């Protein structure tokens, strides 16, 4: 009887990380970061070593785990461009070209440190399996492995806030083990509707020394959208969905 009581006490005393497996932590991170279906406005700022900046504003819709569409509202040279992602398929629509062309997740439609996989990000859980979960003093650390070879980064190392279950820092690695970039989530903000999450994402890459890119969120809210919005034929009309 004493042994049984001792066992029960030990189980109660175990840290929360043991009660939650890595996959569950990742699911919580995905949902805390964004509702499964949402709309938002984002500003992308690319900073060059000489201090000059280039800014883009995108209107973004996401539905389910793997459908994202993003429309460029600014600058004028990119206005009307739209990108669509359905799972591993990515397309870019340029008004002058008039028809969508397939693009890859490794490219960057803005030419910044953020690539298309960052700009059209789907749930982490849709692309990665959790290989290991570890508890550190202030954070939970997840080691993630891409589910297929089509994913932009082969491995991610994600530091997760233990209280908020939100990502703090993510290191992205190539299959060779080389660090491609580091993403840092900052500025927790209450967007309303029960959404409290970082409003800023910064990234730097050892491949682009001196360059830095920042993504800012505004007007993030839950939404329901018809499936037809996430099709090639709808890309020229996405801007009509804005209020």
């Amino acid at each position, binding site marked *: 009887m004493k042994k049984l009581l001792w066992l029960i006490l030990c189980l109660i005393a175990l840290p929360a990380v043991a009660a939650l497996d890595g996959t569950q932590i990742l699911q919580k991170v995905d949902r805390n970061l964004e509702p499964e279906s949402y709309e938002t*406005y984002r*500003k992308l*700022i*690319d900073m*060059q070593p000489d201090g*000059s900046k*280039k800014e883009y*504003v995108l*209107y973004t819709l996401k539905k389910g785990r793997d459908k994202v569409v993003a429309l460029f*509202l*600014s*600058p*004028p*040279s990119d*206005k*009307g461009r739209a990108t669509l992602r*359905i*799972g*591993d*398929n990515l397309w870019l629509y*340029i*008004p*002058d*070209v*008039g*028809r969508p*062309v*397939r693009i*890859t*997740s*490794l*490219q960057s439609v803005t*030419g910044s440190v953020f690539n298309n996989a960052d700009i059209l990000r789907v749930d982490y859980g849709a692309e990665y399996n959790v290989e290991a979960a570890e508890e550190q003093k202030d954070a939970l650390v997840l080691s993630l492995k891409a589910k297929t*070879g*089509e*994913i*932009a980064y082969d491995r991610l190392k994600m530091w997760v806030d233990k209280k908020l279950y939100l990502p703090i820092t993510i290191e992205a690695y190539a299959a060779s083990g080389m660090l491609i970039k580091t993403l840092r989530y900052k*500025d927790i903000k209450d967007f309303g509707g029960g959404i409290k999450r970082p409003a*800023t994402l910064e990234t730097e890459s050892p491949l*682009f020394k001196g*360059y830095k890119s*920042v993504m*800012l*969120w*505004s*007007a993030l809210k839950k939404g329901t959208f*018809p*499936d*037809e*919005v*996430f*099709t*090639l*034929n*709808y890309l020229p*009309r996405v*801007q*009509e969905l*804005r*209020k």
Partner: protein
Amino acid sequence: MSMPRASWAHWSLLFFLSVTAHAAAAEEYTFDASEFDKKPFELGGYLQFKQENFALNRGGAFYKLGNVNQPQRDSLDRTTGTMELIGKVRPGIGTFDFRTHSDLVRDQVTHDHTNVLYEGVYSIRPDPGVTVEAGKKTLRWGKGYAWNPIGFVERAKDPNDPELSREGLVMASSDFIFNREGPLKTVAFTPVLLPVGKDVNSDFGATGHLNPAAKLYLLYRDTDIDFAWQGKGSRPGRFGMDFSRNLTSNFEMHGEWARISQFARPVTDSAGRVTIGTENATSYLLGLRYLSEKDTTYIAEYYRNGTGYSEQQAQQFYQLVNTAFAQLEQTGSSALLPKALSLTQGAYGRPNAGKDYLYFRAQQKDALGIVYFQAAITAMMNLQDRSYQVTPELFYSGVKNLDLRLRLFMLQGGSSTDFGEKQNSRKLELYARYYF
């Protein structure tokens, strides 16, 4: 007690630096989306200044035909100012989209200007999956980068500038989109009605027809597939299909196939005897796009032009032109010249009138380690006569709203070859485009 002058300057400088640093930091991370709310009227566009220098090919058939009874030149400098206005008005339940195109061209021979409405179309969307449109619109069908055999209801693309905006055609069209789960994710159907009359789409084909056309799009097992059709009317009936698929995340493959029924094509011999051959014409294209680890994009396409001319047929035409000008030189007049000119304005004068072409482009992003700087090289070859064109290109978009592009076209080919008989042997082109 007064503070020494140096101290005032010191504190003023510190205050200024702290205020500007604070302002810069605040600006860097501030974003309010309300300024991007949808507006009832939107207007944008670009202004472009283009300077071209042509090294004219005095011995080329198309130079001779384009400069009959004109002062002969070895070179030409052309300046072109272009303005495109792109706008959107949202009256009532629908949306009116428009694009205007204005050109002002000056060179040693031409002083000209054009004002064209490229697009002006009213759209209503009674349901997210249904769009009904009427007006002047540019449809772009097909997956090819340089050519589109299934571009049935559009003006031909310029393979030297495939991403250039083009004038549309007056039409009524609809778009029906169906989405579903499973291997067939999307089905979209686009029917089109295109009238051709004396004042409407008159350059499309024979007048007095309401031409039906349609496209069916499928996203099936991660492959884009289109089936296209255009009924017989102003032009012979035609049908075709295309596909595009990523074989790996950085390797895309695409293709197009089209068949035109009973296509009538004039064929001349070197004496100017023209026969109209009518037969079914099959065109197709196979292409790929590859992105390397070093961010170099390669595009390659093979194009079989079913309505084009073989090397021998083209040689007969070039001989006709040479004979016509030899006659003109010897006698002061030539009965063959009007025939040659007439054929040039028709099928023989198209940008790519041959049968087999190869297109290759390599473009390097962030070339020389400079962000927003792109270096590219494009080559186009007529595979039958082995003549070709090579175009190195530099492009910079690092200045806000400004694009700069420099290109040098170098054409190479012997007598009686596709690129050897063009109007120019070289062209240097520089443009600055400012978006607003």
